[in-house]
């Protein structure tokens, strides 16, 4: 139901794109994301609830790929809800994930928001980037 908290033992998926938001080390290898990858607006950070309706990482990738163009350079950022909440507790901010199903323009029943952060919260956003685990898209045929 819209507004319900996403359980702490669940994870969120973030389509990390464009690839310029991915951080590279001196060898060109991926190391993480910058704050712009978090897609934050005044509502919060737009993500997808991976375990929604029995889903898993592969199904989350399919949903994201259905919604947007996926390039080989793109990655899925996986964030633990528990880790998000811990960052909020450390910062005295009620940071949590909430179910936010979308019907338009494209249906996305697994959509979720990270609530409690705005574009101006530079330290909080940077803290959230440290818990993003990057994974390649798991799509059929790849």
């Amino acid at each position, binding site marked *: 139901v819209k507004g319900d908290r996403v359980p702490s033992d669940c994870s969120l998926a973030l389509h990390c794109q*464009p690839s310029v938001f991915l*951080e590279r080390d001196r*060898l*060109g290898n991926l190391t993480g994301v*910058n704050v712009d990858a978090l897609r934050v607006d005044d509502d919060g950070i737009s993500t997808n609830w991976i375990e929604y309706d029995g889903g898993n990482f592969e199904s989350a990738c399919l949903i994201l790929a259905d919604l947007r163009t996926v390039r080989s*350079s793109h990655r899925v950022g996986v964030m633990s809800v528990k880790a998000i909440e811990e960052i909020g507790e450390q910062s005295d901010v009620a940071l949590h994930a909430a179910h936010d199903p979308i019907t338009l323009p494209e249906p996305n029943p697994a959509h979720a928001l990270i609530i409690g952060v705005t574009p101006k919260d530079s330290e909080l956003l*940077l803290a959230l980037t440290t818990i993003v685990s990057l994974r390649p898209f798991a799509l059929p045929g790849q």
Partner: protein
Amino acid sequence: MSMNLRPSALQDALAADAILCSQASTPIDYFQVVLPSPVDQLLRWDSVIKIDNGGPSANKYAGHFLSQDSGVHVFTSQAAAIRQATMLLASISNPHIVSVEQGQTSLYELVADRKTSSLDIDQRASIAVKPATARTPTQKIARSTAGIFLALLAARHDSINAESFHGLVRQVLAILSDDDELASHRIMPRVESFEGLLNFLSVRKPTHPNLSLSRDGRFVASWSPTPKSKLTLTFKTRNGGDWVGVNLVDPRSKGNGPFETTSLKLPEPFADWM
């Protein structure tokens, strides 16, 4: 004016960097070598990046290059600079141009195109050079975004250490190689931001940072001494930008603010992370 081409120096450089060259997934931009010659004489050429001298004149040439539309030209008499240039140019993505083995041909095209017939060119340079088939001297080359920033880097290579130079080459190629994606997201990498990054690396000589680009085209350097700590510097101008630091192990350790490269003094523990 007399110019002596040194194809052997180029070939040596290519051999020395054969591994790196072979990693290039696409053909490269063309490559020229111009040898001992008064700098002023080089100004008659349309596009010059002088990479054997990182001084003020190099920036002048880089700026000159950026105003042109004819690709990357490297003029140098220094063997080390030739190697640097070879590595750079071997990585520039452009499907319409000649390979590095054919690169000297492009010099002849350029010379012919500029009608610099008074130049005394060492004809040994033509040995074993194949004609360029991918373009003619009159065709304009669409410069890639990565190529532009690699050219800026080449112009400043003397001012940063080797680790940072090579790191930036790889990072620029990794971050800026997809022009279609940059265009589709309307992201325009900013030259002044990149120059700010180069100034910072030159002046501060930090551990080489991770690198990315912000939504508004600014370069973002980051350091993460542990998985739960991170410092970022976003370069907004040639002289500074904004910093943000967090340390999840000690939540009291956090901060942000503007910085200037020449007077950057971050609080502990962030200063030690760079």
